[in-house]
């Protein structure tokens, strides 16, 4: 009896082992399991840390004052934030502003980016290639630099109570709502994120099944009806994806509302952190909840996605709308002018700023005297003589700037490699198990950090890694960890989309030939999907280069270029910040060009004409 029992037990154990062996013999299973664990920890741990912070007592802050204790735990922060006399000012007003800003930015990005994408992909517009390339510039630049340009353009002694900006100098004074607050914040963030809409909506426009519209034309459907009944429903997924990406981005943006004088949850988080530390953490949680809610809405929308079938004749290619001989040129000129102000003018303005004697001092324009220009901001090689440099050396000799530049490149390269590789693996594994719950879970967990506002993610990781065991503040390790987690979706989404288009037979053929997994990946799958996969590396790289909201709580100001740039901007040393901006833009353009030449991949890959 005993030996029979032992044999049965041994058999069961063997069966279990064999099952496990079979399970792990498929790399996609191992990837899903590993990523499931890693992503759960990397998402839940910071949330846990920040929730804990909301109930911890912080010496010298309101919770200590209310609880009369200097350590331990209390719910005083929740009570005070939601019920005190300051609730409106500290919570509700910023929350309303944040929602308005996020919604407004989504609308602006979708309208501007969507119309642009339509004109580029579906019409015979002139200069499509140029416009396509120039349109993504605002995304390349740090988002608040457009806010600073906005200030330089529209501020005036009469309205904003500061020195006159360019327009005011010419006698044009804009009203206050135009100069500061919600409107300019929406415009700036909308312009910054419009390239998302352009790339996503443009991608669908370019690849959409022409049969549907052709069928409508054959059936003599009016153009407006075709647009509203066919074209817009077709791009609905892209619009939802844009909302998904822009809403969280705008909500977590700190610098734009900060510079344009709008109180949002992000700016409130920073300003409350000294006296209301625990309450600030509650604000971060509220922002995170929005991220979770957006993901939930996205899942619902995926379930209700419609399919279309044509019952008429077939079409071979997408028909382009003719704008007419004059129209195609006229609209192109209009867009060239528009993109000049959003993409070229800021760069010209940055370049000029680095040659002005004082920040914002455009004396040479009014006087016509070019001796009112200087190269000191670039070439000064000492910081002893006081020549209006605020104790700084010129950009070319400034150790702080170049150290931050090296640090930024290091962080961007590491984040790009880690996020790109992990994301590609996730994309591959999820595509292999597209219907399984595990794959769906991993896919969602990978996406969640991206949907959470950057400043909230930064705050959570700061708290998580500031203890006696892990003290990673101001280390590249921390920035790389956070950047990787945040940007995995760039790679996982693009890898998943491309892998789903790949027939399983290709890999199966190799599998029959006993080709090992790494060879299948390196020799078959990656080469076929290299363009999509590379954009999964390129986007984290670019975004990391100028990311501020995510990193600002995790390091000091000279650590990476974005914090250094913000420091100089806040100090009013626009020559330095403009110089750094130029360095960033040139770096990104060089990288984009090199990757484009070597691999054929680029940010706006193939959308423009």
């Amino acid at each position, binding site marked *: 009896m005993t030996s029979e029992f032992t044999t049965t037990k041994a058999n069961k154990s063997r069966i279990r082992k064999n099952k496990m062996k079979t399970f792990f013999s498929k790399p996609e299973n191992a990837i899903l399991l590993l990523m499931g664990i890693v992503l759960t920890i990397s998402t839940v741990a910071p949330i846990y840390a920040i929730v804990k912070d909301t109930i911890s007592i912080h010496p010298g802050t309101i919770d200590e*004052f209310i609880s009369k204790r200097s350590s331990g735990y209390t719910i005083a922060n929740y009570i005070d934030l939601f019920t005190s006399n300051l609730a409106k000012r500290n919570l509700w007003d910023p929350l309303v502003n944040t929602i308005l800003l996020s919604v407004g930015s989504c609308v602006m990005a979708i309208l501007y980016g969507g119309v642009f994408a339509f004109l580029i992909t579906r019409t015979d517009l002139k200069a499509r290639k140029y416009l396509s390339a120039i349109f993504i510039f605002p995304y390349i630049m740090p988002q608040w630099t457009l806010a600073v340009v906005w200030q330089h353009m529209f501020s005036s002694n009469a309205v904003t109570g500061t020195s006159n900006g360019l327009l005011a100098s010419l006698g044009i004074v804009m009203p206050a709502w135009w100069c500061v607050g919600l409107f300019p914040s929406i415009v700036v963030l909308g312009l910054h994120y419009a390239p998302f809409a352009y790339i996503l909506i443009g991608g669908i426009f370019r690849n959409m099944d022409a049969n549907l519209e052709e069928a409508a034309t054959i059936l003599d459907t009016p153009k407006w009806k075709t647009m509203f009944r066919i074209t817009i429903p077709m791009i609905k997924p892209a619009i939802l994806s844009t909302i998904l990406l822009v809403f969280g981005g705008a909500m977590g943006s700190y610098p734009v509302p900060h510079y344009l004088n709008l109180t949002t949850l992000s700016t409130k988080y920073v300003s409350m952190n000294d006296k209301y530390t625990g309450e600030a953490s509650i604000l971060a949680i509220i922002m995170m909840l929005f991220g979770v809610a957006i993901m939930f809405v996205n899942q619902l929308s995926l379930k209700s996605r419609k399919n279309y079938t044509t019952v008429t004749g077939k079409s071979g290619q997408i028909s382009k709308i003719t704008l007419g001989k004059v129209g195609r040129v006229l609209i192109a000129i209009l867009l060239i002018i528009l993109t000049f102000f959003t993409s070229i003018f800021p760069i010209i303005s940055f370049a000029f700023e680095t040659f002005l004697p*004082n920040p914002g001092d455009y004396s040479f324009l009014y006087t016509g005297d070019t001796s009112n220009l200087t190269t000191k901001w670039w070439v000064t090689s000492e910081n002893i003589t006081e020549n209006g440099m605020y104790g700084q050396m010129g950009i070319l000799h400034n150790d702080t700037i170049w150290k931050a530049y090296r640090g930024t490149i290091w962080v961007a390269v590491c984040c790009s490699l880690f996020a790109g590789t992990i994301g590609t693996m996730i994309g591959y594994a999820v595509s292999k198990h597209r219907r399984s719950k595990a794959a769906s879970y991993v896919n969602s967990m990978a996406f969640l950090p991206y949907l959470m506002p950057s400043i909230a993610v930064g705050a959570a990781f700061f708290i998580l890694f500031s203890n006696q065991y892990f003290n990673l503040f101001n280390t590249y390790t921390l920035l790389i960890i956070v950047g990787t987690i945040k940007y995995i979706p760039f790679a996982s989404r693009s890898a998943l989309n491309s892998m789903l288009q790949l027939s399983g037979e290709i890999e199966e053929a190799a599998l029959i030939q006993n080709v090992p997994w790494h060879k299948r990946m390196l020799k078959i799958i990656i080469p076929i999907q290299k363009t999509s996969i590379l954009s999964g590396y390129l986007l984290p790289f670019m975004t990391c280069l100028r990311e501020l909201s995510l990193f600002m709580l995790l390091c000091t100001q000279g650590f990476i270029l974005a914090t250094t740039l913000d420091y100089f901007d806040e100090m009013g040393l626009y020559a330095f910040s403009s110089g750094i901006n130029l360095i960033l833009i040139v770096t990104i353009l060089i990288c984009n060009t090199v990757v484009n030449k070597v691999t054929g991949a680029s940010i706006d890959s193939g959308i423009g004409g």
Partner: protein
Amino acid sequence: MKSKVKVLAIMLIITALVVPLYAGGATDSPRANETSPVEEIIKQAEGMSLEELAKKAIEESNGKMFYGVGNSSRGKTALPLFISYLQTIDPNYTLNYEWQQPKNNKIFDQLTADSLKSTGTFAMTLIQDGNQIESKMVRTGILDTFIPKEWAEANGTTADEYKGFLPLQTLNKVFMYNNTGDKEFDNVWDFVAPGEHGLFMDIDSEIVGKNFLYMLTSDQYSAVLKDAFDALPEEEKATFQATIDQVATDADDLGLGENGKYALAWIKLWVESYNAQTDDGPICNTLVSQSATDQFGLIVYSKLRSVEESATVSKKFVDIAAYNDGYKGFGGFGYCHYLFVTDNSPLPWTACAFIAYMVETADGFSAWGKDIGGYSANPVVAEETEAIYKHKTGGMAEDGVTVVYPALNDRGGDWWLSENRLVLEDPSYCASVSFTVGSWIEMLSKYTPN
């Protein structure tokens, strides 16, 4: 998806419920009452001269890495000078260093996080905002005060007798205005008159600005405001009287002194009128511009040093209000840069020697001393610094007689720090009213141009 949300929700609820139970036995910070090894070293160091400290530092840190953190970037300039000084004693001495300057109040978080390690990263700090230092750093035992022997002697005291933190310098933020128009400011109440919108760093961005407002409610400075109010012409008094009456009950409720209502009135008018800016730099850029007619700001005095003359920008376009004849009331506020050794300092002797070097020698202070608007807390160093940099005549032409830039003739620490010309920060007072007067201030509606 539903199951994921459920799992996440359950995790958060468990976190919220379990952690407080787990933490049931938490007690008030124990470190503040114990004498740490660093405090013992400080005790010894307080009896030593700079040279003796330097020898200890050489013994301790030769070839090692030194981390400092501060609100001022100039610590980075002072460190190599300190190393050069140590090399005059031991030419083979070397020290690698890194100086960090966090923003957005992060210095307190950073020091708190570092204090959790048995041996910290940061050897010392140069830090501002007496209020938070008192409540978050000193009461919790994170930072220790070291009073150098020769600094104490120069101030006619001893380390044992001296109570308070060690100040490196007092910095001033002063009312300055663009003089291309004909507006005059001869009373501190002029800055809160109807229609005025002074440029000021937001009190939520830089807490020393908030401390300035707290200090106004003290008996000393509320009396200054009352005197300045009394000196106003009757019709101007009438402008402010309604506000003063309106806040009188609040002043009583907050337990302020007899002139507290004048302080609250001024604070209310200021908070509801100032035009918040991101930093003093942009404010200075505005004020020196020809187009900023009649604008004024309350900014760090030393910002003026970095203005370059051009067709439309000049230091000539700016005047310091407190220098005007017959000016009544305070001309700005003062706050200190304090020096501390961290309680878990990896290099406590070196930290003490570096601190002593900065507060006891003109060379050590030179990183700050070369600018106007920063006054060494050591009278000997202050005198030497003035002799070297001649700030009192910094606005004169080469002939030494013609005044070119009146605003640049810094009248010096002796002038600014006397007769209530500056509202000076008292950390204990600020900490005591932070959640009473502080909350009252937070209820006020700030001005926005839109």
